[in-house]
């Protein structure tokens, strides 16, 4: 009897272990598969705008507003990822198995992957069927993302105008004004340095954001040829004088005109250096404006000491975000409709307004107006919009035009460029090889 009991227990333990393992594989299966219509339709969405992200508050408010509006009808299951890198890597892994969430941000090549794996939906028919939505998205954003065959796989929720911010006090004490030419820009840097100020807040880690804005600006304002190059998506070669000359200038800036921690630093280091008045200039967009008044990040009264400018030669980064992709091609009609409603909300009037007010993101069209109250509270944003109307050159940033393998190569090669491991010509070749890697697939 005792022996039988022992055997039975052993068998039970073994079976429990086996079934526990087997059950792990089914963990993600939806528990409400048998939804009979009375339960809200559940859709999935992933975001990196969480925690200390500059747009976290705006993102939360948009999600709260949507959940309130569609309570009992649609439920958004949000997956929060703590950084841009973590988000992109996770989405790439999900794209490989065709398991992207219903709505994603299509940045860094994710949109293209969603199109390749067949999950992305063409949005043109839905836009044509909804006049109100069409009005707030606007022709500019639609044309920006349209493919050659007239399809549209992503919709932006904001327009980007990126110039640079400068510390008016430091400029005044040095006796300089925002440079009109690149020669004057370099001469300003030298003067700031002579006066004991570190001119530029730069960083080469992550996507080398603040550094690559200067690189894009130098290329994009270098005549018609340079401007055309910086408006070309996914260039196949970086082996040209435009890029080499720009890299030579950026090399000089990284060597002589920035903080010692810039090489390998992340965006937060660079932003902190400007906000704490360790540097005189930072290239960045209007989403940084709320930080100038946030005393937990910036020095008291900094907002009054900051000015905004076009890049030398009257240039400005002007582009739409890649925006949001609807990945519901393989889903039920019910889920497709629910996800589309969410996409409409995320890129519509209310969300654009929330993002404008909470994180300084510019709306897609003039149909979302800047209130007088907003203009009064955010003079820098108003100045930037005014300046953009006077710009001679408009161009995109590197993040939008280059393959992700090229962006990765920037962060690996900049340190070598600065410390003499490679020349600007060699770095241009490395960037071209990185682009080749993408093409070979």
């Amino acid at each position, binding site marked *: 009897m005792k022996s039988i009991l022992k055997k039975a227990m*052993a*068998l039970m333990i*073994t079976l429990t*272990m*086996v079934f526990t*393992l087997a059950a792990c594989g089914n963990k993600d299966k939806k528990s409400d598969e048998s939804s009979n219509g009375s339960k809200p339709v559940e859709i999935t969405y992933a975001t990196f705008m969480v925690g200390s992200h500059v747009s976290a508050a705006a993102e939360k408010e948009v999600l709260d507003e949507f959940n309130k509006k569609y309570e009992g009808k649609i439920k958004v299951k949000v997956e929060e990822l703590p950084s841009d890198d973590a988000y992109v*890597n996770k989405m*790439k*892994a999900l*794209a*490989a198995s065709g398991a992207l969430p219903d709505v994603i941000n299509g940045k860094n*090549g994710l949109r293209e*992957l969603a*199109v*390749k*794996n*067949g999950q992305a939906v063409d949005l043109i028919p839905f836009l044509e069927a909804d006049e109100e939505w069409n009005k707030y998205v606007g022709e500019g954003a639609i044309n920006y993302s349209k493919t050659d065959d007239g399809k549209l796989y992503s919709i932006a929720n904001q327009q980007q105008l990126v110039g640079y911010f400068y510390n008016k006090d430091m400029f005044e004490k040095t006796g300089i004004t925002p440079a009109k030419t690149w020669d004057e820009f370099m001469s300003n840097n030298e003067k700031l340095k002579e006066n004991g100020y570190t001119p530029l807040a730069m960083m*080469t*880690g992550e996507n080398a954001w603040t550094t690559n804005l200067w690189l894009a600006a130098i290329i994009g304002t270098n005549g018609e040829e340079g401007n055309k190059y910086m408006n070309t998506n996914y260039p196949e070669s970086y082996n040209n004088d435009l890029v080499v000359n720009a890299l030579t200038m950026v090399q000089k800036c990284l060597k002589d005109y920035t*903080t*010692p*921690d810039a*090489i*390998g630093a992340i965006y937060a280091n660079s932003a902190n250096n400007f906000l704490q008045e360790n540097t005189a200039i930072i290239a960045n967009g209007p989403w940084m404006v709320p930080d100038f008044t946030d005393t937990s990040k910036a020095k008291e009264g900094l907002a009054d000491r900051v000015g905004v400018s076009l890049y030398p030669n009257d240039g400005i980064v002007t582009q739409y975000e890649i925006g949001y992709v609807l990945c519901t091609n393989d889903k039920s009609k019910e889920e497709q409709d629910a996800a589309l409603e969410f996409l409409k909300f995320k890129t519509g009037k209310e969300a654009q307004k929330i993002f404008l007010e909470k994180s300084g993101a510019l709306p897609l069209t003039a149909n979302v107006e800047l209130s007088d109250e907003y203009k009064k509270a955010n003079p820098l944003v108003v100045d930037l919009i005014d300046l953009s109307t006077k710009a001679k050159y408009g161009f995109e940033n590197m993040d939008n035009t280059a393959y*992700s*393998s090229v962006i*990765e190569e920037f*962060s*690996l*090669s*900049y*340190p*070598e460029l600065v*410390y003499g*491991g*490679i020349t600007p010509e060699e770095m241009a070749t490395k960037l071209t090889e990185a682009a080749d*890697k*993408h093409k*070979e*697939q």
Partner: protein
Amino acid sequence: MTKNRKWIILFLTPGIILFIFVFLISIVLLVGTSFTSWSIGSSISFSGIKNYIYLFTKDKDFITSIFNTIIWIGLQSTVHIFIGVVLALILSRARWYTSIVRTIFFIPNIISSAALGLLFLCIMNPQFGMVNNIITKITGNQFAHNWFMNPDTAFFSVTMTWLPYAGLVTILVMAEMASISKEIYEAASIDGASNFQQNIYIVLPMMRNIIGTATILAATSMLQKLDIIIMTTGGGPGARTMNMPMYLYKTALVDNNYGLANAQGVILIVLGLITLISVRKIYRMDKER
């Protein structure tokens, strides 16, 4: 015996099922797909040994990553083990500070690699880091060296985030040393052997297997090292601190080239097996004492 066999089979079943579904199938898939062209959204197509030819003839960064990995395996199997064993020999003679030193020395082993990476980023920060501050104080001149990003010091700096911290080796060796009978030491002392001679001629030969085991653990840890490299240099500048796991991660998640990444995975496994066999041969671990 027959009765025991039933029990053995019964208890081994979950382990075998786990091995087949988690490891064996994955390895077979890994090897199989390493002979294909496979990226996200594209259909998989057989490409023979194209991936392997590309890696060994065209991909300079991959070759660098192999060299770096081998150098780190070498350093970890020698310098790291040497530090751990010497400290174990020193601490084995009970003194008042033994447990304090042993505990402090083990701390880096209980901190997560990501936190350790962040810690070293702060210690070696060019602007406010402790290392540069100390050098500035000593020399009297402002010192702002970028340890992780300067190509001349990047490899050394990354290596220093793990090489000296041999707490695990020390603990393992000390545990084994506790099993040596006191009579052996007493007999050696009567014969006039000094502490040093006892360590060289008695203790170390008896520690052969545990040192071999510690070497395997230390060497193979270099085949998995990823998080601390991501946190500190990301494999740069250029490919100066790129190791095989980091390059594989980059190929899969940045370049989205899964066929090529899986070929790198196969080479990584082969390197792991070579390391394992070499260490066992060097320490003659398969032979009786």
